[in-house]
């Protein structure tokens, strides 16, 4: 069967999964201007931006002859749970015979889950499927790990564009893997590639770090958020994104009462500000903001589609939260009218502000100077004590000399 899926972040994992299960994969294009125009034209006017982009992608896939589109469902209060139904109706109105199939929460309706899974398994027996799942999970996990690293070290590259080029190579390398051993080997090779790229050296206290929170689709798909991560990296800012496919799977599959993965703890840490999850990731995102503040990040970039329901609740709370935590938060709401220059200008201004805030903290004030003198004196005192001790016992190799 000709199968397709929405383009969200790094799609290698989905592609390999479908290929391994014996489907013919219609690769979705990266969302382009045409995709967004198509989506905006055929979607309801006030629906959120991810829906429009996905509509555009689905139409493009249907044009290429996709018979089945696989996506994730939901039944929370967020609009994402109604996506498949409306998408199906839009495609139907346009005269395509493409079917939209979703995976709903398996704890709610297990038989329906098994039914959809069976269809997707395409006659593959269950042990083989488990093997494929393990392989795909390893692949996704390793790629996400590399991507996390990429977003930190790319901030310090000497020749701009080196890392992005290398990343493209690495993705195509991963696409050729077949077994878990291949994946591990490619992972090691990718690390070597990363290490061979020239980087600037930075001191620990000069690192500027920014966290990205927001609606899962727009923070994962770079063409939709106008490459926020790359722009920030090119301004010399490290980026930590809170959503990756492997994290999302872990968060949803591992029971909530276990302390790992970290997102479970983060989820609970925002109880004071948002006692109940309003759907989507709003409570988790609020928790991540607290977590970033605790770890001493310099700022948070909040990305949301225009009129996203759960993120709007967060947006309303952010001014007060930002004041309380003394951490700047910038919110960008994205829609089809958004231009890259707009994002660039705002992020430049934001990074300038957080940099000046970061370095003003380190500049010596009269109180700081007194403190540092005191510290220095204490250090000298300990050193002197050590020297005295050494002289008294006179060992063969005094410790201070070895250093």
């Amino acid at each position: 069967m000709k199968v397709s899926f929405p383009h969200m972040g790094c799609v290698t994992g989905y592609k390999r999964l479908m290929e391994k299960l014996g489907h013919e994969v219609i690769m979705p294009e990266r969302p382009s201007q045409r995709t967004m125009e198509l989506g905006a034209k055929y979607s309801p006017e006030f629906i959120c931006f991810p829906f429009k982009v996905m509509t555009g992608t689905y139409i493009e896939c249907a044009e290429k002859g996709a018979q089945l589109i696989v996506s994730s469902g939901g039944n929370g209060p967020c609009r994402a749970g109604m996506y498949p139904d409306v998408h199906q109706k839009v495609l139907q109105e346009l005269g395509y015979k493409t079917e939209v199939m979703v995976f709903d929460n398996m704890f709610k309706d297990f038989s329906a889950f098994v039914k959809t899974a069976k269809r997707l398994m395409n006659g593959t027996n269950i042990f083989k499927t488990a093997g494929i799942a393990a392989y795909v999970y390893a692949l996704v996990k390793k790629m996400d790990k590399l991507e996390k690293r990429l977003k930190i070290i790319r901030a310090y590259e000497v020749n701009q564009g080196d890392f992005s080029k290398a990343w493209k190579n690495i993705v195509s390398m991963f696409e050729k893997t077949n077994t878990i051993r291949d994946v591990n080997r490619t992972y090691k090779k990718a690390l070597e590639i990363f290490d061979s790229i020239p980087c600037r050296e930075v001191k620990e206290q000069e690192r500027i770090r920014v966290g990205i929170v927001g609606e899962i689709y727009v923070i994962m798909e770079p063409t939709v958020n106008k490459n926020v991560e790359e722009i920030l990296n090119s301004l010399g800012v490290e980026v930590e994104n809170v959503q990756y496919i492997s994290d999302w799977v872990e968060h949803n599959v591992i029971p909530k009462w276990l302390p790992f993965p970290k997102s479970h703890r983060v989820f609970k840490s925002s109880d004071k500000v948002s006692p109940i999850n309003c759907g989507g990731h709003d409570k988790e995102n609020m928790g991540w903001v607290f977590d970033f503040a605790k770890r001493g990040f310099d700022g948070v970039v909040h990305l949301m589609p225009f009129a996203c329901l759960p993120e709007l609740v967060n947006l309303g709370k952010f001014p007060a939260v930002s004041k309380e935590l003394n951490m700047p938060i910038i919110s960008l709401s994205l829609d089809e009218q958004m231009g890259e220059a707009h994002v660039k200008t705002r992020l430049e201004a934001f990074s300038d502000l957080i940099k000046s805030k970061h370095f003003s903290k380190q500049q010596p004030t009269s109180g700081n100077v007194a403190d540092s003198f005191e510290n220095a004196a204490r250090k000298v005192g300990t050193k002197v004590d050590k020297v005295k001790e050494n002289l008294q016992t006179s060992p063969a190799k005094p410790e201070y000399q070895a250093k």
Partner: protein
Amino acid sequence: MKIGIPRALLFQYYYPLWRSLFERLGFEIVVSDESTKPLVQKGIAVTVPEICFPIKIYNGHVINLMEKGVDYIFCPRFVHIEKDYWFCPKYIGLPELVEMSVPGSNVLVAEIDCQREDTADPKCYAPVAKKLGIPMSKMKTALKGAAEDFAKFREYCHLGLTLDEAAKVMFEGASVEDFILPEYDTTIGLIGYIYNVYDPFISMNIIKKLRELKVNVITFDMLDARQLLKYRNNCTRPIFWTFPDKLYQSASVMIKDLQVQGIIHITAFGCGPDSIVGKEIEHDFADSGVPFMTLRIDEHTGESHLQTRIEAFTDMIKRKIRKVKEVREVNEVKR
């Protein structure tokens, strides 16, 4: 002690319950003024610009109540009133949203998470009792009485009264006969949430305007709860919000059973669930031949725009009815 209730969002629907409850408990209740331009402007000034219009109005009412000097602002958090059916995320985050955008507001939160339409579950109102220092036993009896009042109120609504009229019958001694209207030949279904239909600032008295045009108006709150369940299984995927689902179901009941000649969908700018429900209704009832119009309203909407569109819509429907009648008469003469 004074408890303030903002005249916004679900106020008109649950006002009889809340009034009856707090009066039984012996508190004085203060209701904020009707929405006016200055009141709404105050709300807009403190709220994030992107959020939907009704929330901005809600904050305006909260500020109005604070100016009146109330001790608490009653702000329930609606999560469920039916299993698997949610409220819009903005309702779920409402108490915190209000606290953070209107500093100094002392919010009295009821956690509505139960399986009854009238929300009169003692579990939901336990936080209120705790904050006000009332024993739970007293709260339980008060809730029981309030629930009975609410049921009576809904009975009046099913007779075809609007929520405002039913409240007048309940509390101001008006009788049902005062509100009986002549039957016109045109019936229009007006679907929209409580605040969109009954807040005079959002809807600009649309019910009154339609009645002046000699049209019978049916809103979703006039329909019985059982009636709304009738076609629920026909949905391709359950619409998992309580009131949006009611709107969709009422549209299907109006078209299939009540033979309305037209449907007006009134929605506020930036409403999330409406973007879905509007599309679903448009798609599912496209073959029924019932005209469907969406009116979108925000702080810039002018009254003449609304008037013109309603008039054009009703004129079109009336002309259609006349034409059908003429053709039928001609056919009968021919026979």
